[in-house]
């Protein structure tokens, strides 16, 4: 799997590259739009991470240039948050996803994984984590064979964690997926729902599945966590 990062901030591209390499990706870095377009149209990448503000050729122009030649490579744009119109414009122009700075690397990895497995991998209807079972069709949750009643939000939260198991999800990511952007200032809402979810999933079990990673977020682990 090979990923191209088009980003003029060397440190930022370095961090992202490190994160991707840690996940087993091969990574190329282009520091400006011109180089990025050249690399993107010369090699077959599995995914491209493209900043909008680039020297020489803007990210938008690079996006259009890539899409003229290659219709399928997944592209994630790094955008400014407020630019709602920009997002729509770039999605229309062929971007598959967008991420706003400042973002968390784990968030970027989650998104790239999602893009890469989007079409080929058919995800199963049931998720199993240790003795926790989630039936995605009937939205039923069982732990150790016992049914657990969850509210719609609690279920959405648990499913999102479970789909990205063993991966730390930031509060911002959780809010964006389970709630929406309007709630982004409300990071404590995640803590409250996690607390509730924990009491339903983990109370009375020796294995605590939901793990807190201080400063980063929450994860659900196959192995027992603290």
């Amino acid at each position: 799997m090979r990923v191209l990062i088009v980003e003029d901030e060397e440190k930022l591209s370095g961090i992202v590259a490190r994160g991707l390499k840690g996940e087993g990706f091969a990574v190329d870095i282009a520091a400006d739009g011109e180089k990025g377009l050249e690399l993107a149209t010369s090699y077959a990448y599995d995914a491209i991470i493209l900043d909008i503000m680039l020297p020489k050729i803007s990210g938008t122009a690079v996006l259009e240039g890539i899409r003229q030649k290659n219709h399928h490579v997944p592209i994630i744009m790094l955008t400014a948050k407020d630019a709602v119109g920009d997002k729509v414009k770039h999605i229309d122009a062929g971007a598959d996803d967008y991420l706003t700075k400042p973002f968390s690397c784990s968030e970027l990895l989650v998104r790239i994984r999602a893009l890469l497995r989007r079409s080929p991998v058919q995800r199963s209807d049931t998720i199993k984590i240790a003795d926790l079972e989630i039936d995605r069709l009937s939205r039923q949750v069982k732990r150790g064979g016992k049914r657990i009643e969850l509210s719609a939000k609690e279920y959405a939260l648990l499913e999102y964690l479970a789909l990205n198991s063993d991966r730390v999800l930031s509060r911002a990511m959780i809010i964006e997926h389970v709630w929406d952007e309007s709630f982004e200032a409300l990071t404590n809402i995640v803590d409250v729902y996690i607390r509730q979810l924990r009491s339903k999933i983990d109370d009375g079990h020796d294995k605590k599945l939901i793990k807190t990673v201080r400063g980063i977020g929450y994860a659900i682990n196959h192995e027992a966590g603290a």
Partner: protein
Amino acid sequence: MNTRSIYFRLILWYSGLIVVMSLAFGGYIYQGVQKRLYHEMKQTLTHRAENIAKSILPRLHDETPAVLAAQIKEVYSPEANGRLIRILDQGHSIVYVSGEPVDGHFDPAKIPVTTRNIQTKRIEQISPDFAMFIVTFPTEVQGQSYFIEMGMPTDDIEAALKGLIVTLFFGLPVMVLIVSGGGYLLVRQSLQPVEDIRATAEKITFGNLSNRLPVPKTGDALEHLSMTLNQMLNRLEAAYEQASRFSADASHELRTPLTIIRGELESIASEQNLSEVLHDRIGSVLEETERLSQIVESLFAISRLDAGEAKIQHVQFDLAALVRSTADQMSLLAEEKNISVQIVADTHVLVEGDPSRIKQVVVNLLDNAIKYTPKDGSIIIKISAAQRKAILEVCDNGIGIPASSLPHVFERFYRADKTRSRETMGAGLGLAIVKSICLAHGGNVDIQSIEGKGTSCRVELPQDKSIETNG
């Protein structure tokens, strides 16, 4: 009435001046008329005295006094006309005197004779309300000196003068009234440009700072004033733009370093052989980084909204439905503190605007209400429509806000209680964002609070013009 207003003072001065001038003018007229009337009377009497001197006196030695008297009576009939005719000789002894007038106003014998030898005029006060104007005319007949005294009552002149005073007396207030009214209109008209400038200036806010005041083409101080004010607005606009551009640029530039800091910290945090203590510290730094990111985002959002640069959708949606779903998504926050959230809504309160931003308003207000309401409290959200405005009220019975803090709660970074809000991770920007969103929608937000009793926030948003609510 405001006695210090320019209106009042101008009109007061104006009217005062008119009163003084009218009094002076009235006095002048009165004096003039009085002088003229007495002058005419003197002329008439002198003229008659001359006639008597010419045609009657020369016959004084030929005729008996009785014949003379009969002649005077025939020509002048002083008794019938209420006049006095008297002829004195050199030693001021009476040669002839007319009889008592038929109206009996005076007794000719009691009117004192003149003691001087020259032509004079004088007024003899006969009774408190009756006076005679007497002209003495010296003449000489056949070497003998005579004095002819001609008298006439002044009551005709006094009556005319009295009439003049009455006319002036009643005319003055009318004149002052008319002139003051005219003055008022004049003042108002000449102050109208000032009023226009004021009305326009009042409407200028940070949302429409590009508006300018009307410049009246008067070529005077007023034109200069409005031009000067407009130049001041230019500078103000430039400064404001610079300020908001600065916060937008600054927050934009902060994003990349923040991403890098976060990325580095996260990668350190994921190191396997990190000690527990270090891990905890990194986590703490990450938490603050997250907070910093949020502040940067909020500041950026506010400056874009305030500068009118934010793209705001204009779709029509049901505010009540939006509030219900939002409150539902936050229900656990309230449940955890056992706070009851009650929604009282008219059906279909339509609002035209950006649903995601209005939702942010609802989220921030409800979150605040939950935060500052103690356990077992209650929150009521009211949604209604009145006068083409949708009204959203979020009322709680929480700890409230001190009156001294109330005017500042919509300011950026303001915290009513420094120690309390720390735990909530906020930066004191929640209400500032609410206000910016409301203003950007052409709406408004207001807050009322009693410390210890609760707080209520009221948001007004414009409704769609074409569709009325049925609630």
